[in-house]
């Protein structure tokens, strides 16, 4: 045992084994609504628990070895545990699933396993510094394997999968709506607040007049904003052609408007900050050398301000993907539909059907935008 990371992994390993043995592992429900019964890991997996416990023990033991590659093995071991559990659960549950509507729901024991596996991956990731290819593989391969298992139908008995299967068309429809809502809100936000931020930068006197309202909007709780928009929008919705577009107090209109309003602050504020961060000496020199104002804007100010502006856009995106959930409350569609439906029907797995894709989307877009931002930044700086 050398570093603190090793002590952390040992702690994780021990806690993991304890959780695994003593916490309820899964819940078998005869149908969607009933609570079902909790089943522990030993009862479900029988002797197979030894495999999992053994793998954890190996991970713990590796912490005592002074070799550099122990982290890699630990991470692979953790991934192995995760995939084994996911395969084992449906395989071993067959005897409990008495009817076609019976389903497996996941309980605390399973979720804790996921947490400890994730922690091992994080701690290990810190310590393998070399080889980006390896890192990317380790992060992507488990996702790939799970996806494969999923498409092979092995996960069909999980309740979340059952929900997905029964609502497949609705799911993809809502996914599309959710994505469209997000993209259009952010794009509209960019079109409105990028110029606003720029004006606030050029004319100091306008800075407060612009930033203050945007900050106030940000503090309005989302549901209140929907409420505020309800009356004016329903009035507008009675006008002929607006009605045809689908504008009304409920539906996509309040969602789109509210989400756009919320993007205004991050984008506007970052635009102002980005431009303000440009070296004044560089601008003075550019002007004194004979650059026209537009040339200074495009050759000096914009390239230097861009990284900060882009970060603002990235924040707006991640914020909006989550915020778009509320569209489900006002009939605007999107993944929030499942969340609220699940709340209404007391079906946690339906809620998960809405939430998990949102989490995946948010993380995915964040990573994608971070990489694009880096690429553009190094392009600007040559």
């Amino acid at each position, binding site marked *: 045992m050398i570093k603190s990371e090793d002590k952390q992994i040992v702690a994780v390993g021990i806690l993991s084994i304890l959780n695994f043995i003593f916490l309820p592992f899964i819940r078998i429900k005869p149908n969607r609504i009933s609570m079902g019964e909790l089943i522990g890991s030993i009862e479900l997996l029988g002797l197979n628990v030894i495999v999992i416990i053994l793998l954890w023990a190996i991970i713990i033991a590796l912490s005592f070895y002074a070799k550099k590659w122990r982290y890699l093995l630990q991470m692979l071991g953790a991934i192995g545990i995760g995939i084994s559990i996911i395969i084992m659960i449906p395989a071993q549950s067959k005897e409990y699933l008495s009817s076609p509507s019976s389903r497996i729901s996941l309980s605390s024991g399973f979720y804790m396993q996921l947490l400890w596996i994730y922690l091992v991956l994080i701690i290990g990731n810190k310590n393998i510094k070399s080889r980006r290819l390896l890192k990317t593989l380790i992060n992507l391969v488990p996702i790939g394997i799970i996806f494969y298992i999923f498409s092979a139908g092995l996960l069909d008995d999980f309740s979340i999968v059952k929900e997905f299967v029964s609502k497949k068309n609705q799911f993809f429809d809502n996914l599309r709506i959710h994505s469209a809502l997000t993209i259009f809100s952010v794009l509209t936000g960019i079109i409105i607040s990028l110029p606003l931020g720029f004006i606030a930068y050029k004319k100091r006197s306008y800075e407060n007049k612009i930033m203050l309202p945007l900050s106030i909007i940000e503090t309005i709780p989302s549901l209140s904003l929907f409420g505020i928009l309800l009356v004016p929008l329903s009035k507008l919705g009675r006008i002929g052609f607006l009605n045809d577009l689908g504008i009304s107090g409920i539906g996509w209109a309040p969602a789109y408007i509210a989400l756009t309003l919320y993007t205004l602050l991050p984008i506007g504020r970052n635009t102002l900050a980005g431009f303000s961060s440009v070296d004044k000496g*560089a601008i003075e*020199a550019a002007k004194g*050398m*004979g650059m026209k104002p537009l*040339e200074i804007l495009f050759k000096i100010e914009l390239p230097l301000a861009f990284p900060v502006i882009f970060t603002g856009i990235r924040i707006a995106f991640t914020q909006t993907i989550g915020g778009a959930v509320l569209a489900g409350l006002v009939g605007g569609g999107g993944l929030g539909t499942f969340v609220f439906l699940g709340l209404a029907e007391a079906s946690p797995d339906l809620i998960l059907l809405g939430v998990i894709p949102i989490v995946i989307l948010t993380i995915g877009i964040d990573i994608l935008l971070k990489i694009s931002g880096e690429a553009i930044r190094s392009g600007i700086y040559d």
Partner: protein
Amino acid sequence: MIKLSNVTKKYGNFVAVDSISMDIKQGELMVILGPSGCGKSTTLRLINKMVTISEGDILVRGKNIVDIDDVELRKSIGYVIQSIGLFPHMSVEKNIATVPTLLNWEKETISKRIDKMLELVGLSPEKYKEKKPAQLSGGEAQRIGVARALAADPDILLMDEPFGAVDPINRLRLQREFRQIQQNLNKTVLFVTHDVEEALLIADRICIMNHGKIIQIGTPEEISINPKNEFVKEFFKGEGILSLLSRKKAIDYVIPRISNESKSANDFNLKEVITLLLTGEADELIFKEGHLTLNEISRALRGEINEFKE
């Protein structure tokens, strides 16, 4: 080359530049010297229209600047500022190429010019062309600033405390090298500073300003020996002729005599000669060209002072 006639700049009620007139000759290095807030930077920036005139006229190359397009005027004048203002996202190469690119020069011409400018300011092109401003030291950055200002070969340079942000050791080198470049290239330079020694080292003429007005214009000799008032005297710390000694070359004062010595009077100024005579053991310094004693130097200098006093 540059002529200011009763130029005034007011900001509301505050008079930053008060009816100043001066005539800067072609190839001259004119230093505008004064304390902070005296209006020297404003005066400089009136010439390239970064600041608009309230009253008076400025003629550049015989034409009133009011009749010249702002942008065209600035492209024809080199501009160097204290904060240097290199563009952080561009390489040294691209920075220097700024004005030539604005003037649509041929790519080949620009490329050769960049190399030439880097060599001019004493930096190796291969080593520095691709560097980014963040990788440069203060002295290197300001050299690039000068190279960038000279890139389009303007005949006029406006410089606002260009060496102020550089450390003292490098500053001396930069001042000497810049003076050499200016003389070789015969550029007309208007140089703003508050540093008396810098002014004395490089100026052909010095213009002293205070509270927006010109107090005195003249050569360093004229001002040191005949300061117009107490203010000027105080500003030069009352050193008078002593402050000029570093400008005087020993070769101009040496008494010719055949000798076997190898060292040349060309490499020494009077300040160094006097220091050597005072701290050394001999009464005279012998050069290849001749010799110097303290007596001979004091006689020559007294003669000069008397000439000025007339």
